[in-house]
């Protein structure tokens, strides 16, 4: 079973495969956007990932390389997930418990016995600790991959491993925290947000109301976690001279998010004169903010007590998103994913950054290049060869009612960015005429505007294709959603170092380090066929793997 998964990860995985794997509950290749956000703000358009399963697979792995840390005394109550018992079984019946809340368990002591069709299985504990809560009664069906018991773990298990046990919460690495600089990303697919945002600008009067609106539906949760916030958020609050305990948190468990801080500041300063440019920051792209703000799961995450449900109606933004997302999915997507060797690009970038740092630069030019400008330029070069990817589908304006393709000459590449006010997709115009430096400069400009909430409608409109760099948060493969009025989108995964065999003839047995990154393309299958996508993706891949090719195309 595991071999099959490993083999598949090294070739392009079709969407069908992903669905099948995910249904079997064993997929690690499903979009890893950890978009399990709070119930009221689930905006994710990636397929709801059973990330629990992924982490339970991790949990199974990590037992073999666990190190025992005696130094850290950490009292943690962790929900323990029911590990995969094999045979593709997703739920089984609890026959009897051997423990009850309050019972002390050692590593390997029996917790319960479960049964699925013909097999009765004894589940043993992986940790020493005290049982806190049983999630199922004897006779109920327990779901594989979901928590079945809470154990108060004593001693200092590695935080990483303990996280592997918990149901994942919106996660972003500390890199993602610096959303204001560098590649900005979002855990939910950003692309479908863009048309919704365009609409927001069309309905400008509506936008002005949002400061008032956004307060009312949100239930003020100043519960026991009123001061619960990540260090980044605390820092922000401090910087803005805000007492964090006064801010109502909208994140999980009443956590205070960056967006909450900004909202609070705005409400405090002036609620009376919203400017049109304030429209952008007041759009709560909540899931993105939620994801960006919580850097890691807090130890107090689990609350004992019964399940409570609070119905929260969708905000205007969410309604817009809902509609546009639904529209986006009328596009039949197909996923094309590939691995790209970034090793040469990494070297080139290092060299170029050295040059840039030395030379005295005029104001307004970037001092440091990231990978994104290279990728954007590569995409543009591929679009010259395959202009159909830059087109859009037109269903209405043709007089005889048939659909048609509208080819576009300029390459306006939308870049998804994670901002305090949420996910935005500003557009870098006419990439075909820009060089790497100017692309980078434009990116930086758009980024600073986005953070300040000052993006203009021109900056947001006119996109012909979109690129999303989700890899700076995490994730390998994704299945991005195409923005309305476009036919393709590229999602870039995380870069990682892998061993690979040398391609130098004569040294084929030598193992080298390579930096690998996964590109996941989605395209509109009504007008783009797999071969075209494959060829275009190949062009991008060739350019990225051998960036010197760009030298040949210098004008």
């Amino acid at each position: 079973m595991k071999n099959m998964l490993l083999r598949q990860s090294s070739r392009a995985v079709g969407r069908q495969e992903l669905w099948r794997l995910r249904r079997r509950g064993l997929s690690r290749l499903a979009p890893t956007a950890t978009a399990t956000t709070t119930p009221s703000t689930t905006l994710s358009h990636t397929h709801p990932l059973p990330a629990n399963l992924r982490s339970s697979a991790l949990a199974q792995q990590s037992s073999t390389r666990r190190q025992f840390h005696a130094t850290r005394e950490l009292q943690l109550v962790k929900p323990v997930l029911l590990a995969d018992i094999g045979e593709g079984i997703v739920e089984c019946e609890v026959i009897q418990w051997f423990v009850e809340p309050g019972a002390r368990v050692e590593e390997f002591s029996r917790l319960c016995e479960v049964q699925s069709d013909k097999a009765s299985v004894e589940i043993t504990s992986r940790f020493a600790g005290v049982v806190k809560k049983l999630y199922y009664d004897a006779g109920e069906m327990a779901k594989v991959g979901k928590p079945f018991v809470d154990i108060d773990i004593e001693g200092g298990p590695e935080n990483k491993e303990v996280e592997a046990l918990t149901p994942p919460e919106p996660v972003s690495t500390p890199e993602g925290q610096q959303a204001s600089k560098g590649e900005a990303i979002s855990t939910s697919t950003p692309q479908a947000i863009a048309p919704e945002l365009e609409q927001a600008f069309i309905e400008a009067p509506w936008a002005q109301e949002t400061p008032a609106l956004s307060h009312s539906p949100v239930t003020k949760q100043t519960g026991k976690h009123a001061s619960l916030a990540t260090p980044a958020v605390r820092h922000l609050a401090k910087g803005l001279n805000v007492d964090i305990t006064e801010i109502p948190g909208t994140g999980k468990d009443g956590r205070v998010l960056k967006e909450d801080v900004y909202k609070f500041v705005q409400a405090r300063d002036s609620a009376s004169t919203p400017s049109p440019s304030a429209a952008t920051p007041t759009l709560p792209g909540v899931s993105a903010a939620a994801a960006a703000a919580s850097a890691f799961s807090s130890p107090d995450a689990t609350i004992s007590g019964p399940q409570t449900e609070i119905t929260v109606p969708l905000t205007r933004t969410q309604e817009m998103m809902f509609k546009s997302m639904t529209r986006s999915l009328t596009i039949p997507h197909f996923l094309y994913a590939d691995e790209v060797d970034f090793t040469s690009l990494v070297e080139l970038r290092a060299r170029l950054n050295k040059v840039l740092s030395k030379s005295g630069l005029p104001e307004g030019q970037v001092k440091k290049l990231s990978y994104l400008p290279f990728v954007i330029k590569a995409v543009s070069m591929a679009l010259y060869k395959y202009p159909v990817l830059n087109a859009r589908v037109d269903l209405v304006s043709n007089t005889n009612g048939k659909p048609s393709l509208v080819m576009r000459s300029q390459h306006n590449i939308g870049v998804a960015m994670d901002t305090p006010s949420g996910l935005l997709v500003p557009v870098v115009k006419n990439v075909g005429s820009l060089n790497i430096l100017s692309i980078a400069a434009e990116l930086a400009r758009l980024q600073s505007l986005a953070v300040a909430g000052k993006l203009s409608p021109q900056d947001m409109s006119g996109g012909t294709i979109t690129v999303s760099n989700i890899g700076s948060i995490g994730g390998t493969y994704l299945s991005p959603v195409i923005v309305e009025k476009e036919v393709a989108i590229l999602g870039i995964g995380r870069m990682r170092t892998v061993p690979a065999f040398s391609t130098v003839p004569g040294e084929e047995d030598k193992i080298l380090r390579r930096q690998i990154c996964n590109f996941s393309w989605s395209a509109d299958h009504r007008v783009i066929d797999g071969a075209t996508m494959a060829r275009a993706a190949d062009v991008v891949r060739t350019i990225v793997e051998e960036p010197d090719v760009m030298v040949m195309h210098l004008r």
Partner: protein
Amino acid sequence: MAALLLRSTTGGFRCLTKGPAFVSTTTTTLSSNPGFGLLTKLRRSYSTTTLSQDLLNKRVQVYQSTSHDPYLNLSIEHHLLQHSHPDSYVLFLYINDPCVVIGRNQNPWLEVNLPALQEAEDIKLVRRRSGGGTVFHDHGNVNWSVICPPAVFDRDRHAEMVVRALKDLGITTAKVNERHDIVIAGDGRGNGKDVFKVSGSAYKLTRLRSLHHGTCLLNSPRLKNIGKFLRSPGEPYIKARGVESVRSPIRNVDIDTEEFNKRVVDEFLAMYEEQFGEDVKVERVGEEVKDMGNIRKGMDELTSIPWIYGQTPQFTFSSRPTEDDPRERPSLDLDVQSDFNIEFTLRHGEIQTANVSGLKYEGPTMDEDFYDGMVSQALAQGSDDESAVKLYEINDWATALKSATSGQAFKMSDSSLNSISGWLNKVFPGNHFR
């Protein structure tokens, strides 16, 4: 006659099919030196054992039971599971007296025809510790049980082993199906095409060990009656959680049990003995080990009424279709009102809630709803504590229903009482051990 014929032909086959039989089987065979080397081991050494820990620590162990007591055999099996060395491979073969064996989490009132069992008098009711469905054992059925480390556990691995043994004995069409059962086509020897199940499997997985055991219908004389015992009169009225049995058409393989045992031992050792290089004896176990601490404890548990009846997960019983169980009910010919309905929910075999209506009463004032309520309450009394009404302790429903109205001014009309308790006694006939 057929049996005799078979023996002579297998005698002939032995030399010819040993080699190819090995080569043609699935990849789970570990032995690289098949065939003729084993011919010399046709005479295995047998010894009677007391299940010492030394013995349980050997890499490869083979046991054969001399007892036909199902409770003892299962306890021995459980003891082997718990105390054999974590890296060892154990085979245990046993034959039981006639009994119906239900799975760990099954519902005896749903799976078994308890009145028929009680009538038959010599058929025991057993709840085993592994999962799966309900089966019938008797002297024509051999139970084989393999315990191995979890790392090599595979649902088909040892089923294939038994298939090889069957093929050796001339059952050429034996194979393992997708439900990990062993099936044969026709009579197994090439006549007929219908598929029949001859063996079912169940598993128990603990942290250190994996147990796979199964039956094999060799020459049961009661084949025709098995169906009768496994169809419960309460089935239309009971909705249970837990594993349901899956019915399949069955037949005898028609071979001698001793032959079968020998072959299975051969195949088992072919898989493991060479690999671990030992000279394995077939150990006989039986009544002698009855007094070993663990085994005695195991038997006490398996024979206890709360284990057999009380380990039943929650289920509902209702004489009319309900939301949870909307099936049509067969019409009851009882002396009751038109709105008659009995509903119980039961947990661990104890009545948790009871709802009775439509009984007929004799008494001064007719407040039937109130009387119904009293009866319901009496039945569901003490549902949270020790005094809950246990289904398996009600040996006669007439008495139980009468005592529900004892001390009251009203009582149920006799004909009503008799007809209802007649029906309830069939569905819930008290416990088997009188």
